[in-house]
C-alpha cells in the first residue's frame, strides 16, 4: 500500500492517531520522525506503550527518514508518518520530493502562537512556512480526525 497519512501532531503517538486514524485506515505501521525521540530508548518505550502489538512502530531521525521514506512508501502495508512540528515537516519535504501532502493534526497553544483552528495554534512564521510548503506543491490541510473536514491551508494560515 503506502503511507496513507503524513501528519504534524505535537503529541506524536496518541489516541487520535492510533485509534482515530489507525482503525479506519487499518494501519500496520507508524513512522515517528523526530530527532530527539529517535535518540532516546526511554522515550521510544513510552511511545510504544500506546500502540497495539500488531502495529509496528519505527523511530527515525529526519536524516534517516529521508533515506528510508521511499521504502516506506512502497511497503505493502498501510502506514502513518508522524512529525511533531512544522520545521520537521518542512525539513522532510525539502529532502524528499515524494512527500506530497501533510495533515496538520494538532499544534497546540504556546507563547507567541495564535489560534487558527480549535486544534491548530501557529506563530506567523509557522503559518508562513506552511504556505510556502503548499506553494512548493505539497497539499497542506488541517484535520484532527477522519470524520472532520480537511481544512485547506489557505483557510487557517
Amino acid at each position: 500500500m503506502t503511507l496513507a497519512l503524513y501528519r504534524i501532531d505535537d503529541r506524536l503517538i496518541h489516541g487520535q492517531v492510533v485509534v482515530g486514524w489507525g482503525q479506519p485506515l487499518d494501519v500496520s505501521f507508524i513512522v515517528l520522525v523526530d530527532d530527539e525521540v529517535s535518540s532516546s530508548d526511554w522515550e521510544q518505550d513510552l511511545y510504544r506503550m500506546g500502540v497495539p502489538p500488531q502495529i509496528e512502530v519505527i523511530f527515525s531521525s529526519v536524516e534517516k527518514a529521508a533515506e528510508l521514506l521511499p521504502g516506506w512508501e512502497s511497503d505493502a502495508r498501510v502506514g502513518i508518518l508522524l512529525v511533531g512540528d512544522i520545521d520537521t515537516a518542512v525539513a522532510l519535504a525539502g529532502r524528499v520530493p515524494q512527500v506530497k501532502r501533510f495533515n496538520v493534526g494538532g499544534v497546540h497553544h504556546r507563547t507567541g502562537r495564535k489560534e487558527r483552528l480549535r486544534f491548530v495554534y501557529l506563530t506567523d512564521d509557522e503559518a508562513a512556512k506552511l504556505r510556502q510548503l503548499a506553494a512548493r506543491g505539497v497539499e497542506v490541510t488541517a484535520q484532527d480526525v477522519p470524520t472532520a473536514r480537511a481544512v485547506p491551508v489557505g483557510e487557517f494560515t
Partner: protein
Amino acid sequence: MSELRGVIVSHAAVAKAMVDAVTAITGIEGVLTPISNEGCGTAELGERLREAVGPGPAVLFVDLPGGSCFTSSARYAKQGGADIAVVTGVNLAMLLDFVFNRDIPPAEAARRAVDAGGKAIRVTSS
C-alpha cells in the same frame, strides 16, 4: 513529609467527572486534582502537571497506558523532581481506595491502587 496527593490525568472531562464521583461517594475533597489534555500540547500538559503536583509526593492516575496523557505523566515523573508514581487504567474503585489510604509512599500507594482497581473489574453474566 507532605501529604500524598492524587492527580488524575485524562482525555476530555473524564478526570473531572471521576473527582466529582469520589467526592459524591466519600465526601472527601481536595485530595484529588483533575487534569485534562484538552487543547494542550506536550509542553502545556507538563505545566499543568507541575502545578497540580507541586512539591509532591503524588500518584498520577492516567486513563490509558499510552498516548499523550501517559507520555507526559511518565516524563514528568522521571524529570519533575518530586516523589511520583504513575498508575494507568484509572478507575473509580482505585480512587476510592486511594483517598482513604494516603499515609504511605507513592510507589506503595500505586501498587495498592492497581490491586484495588484490578479487583473491581469483573464479568457478570447470566
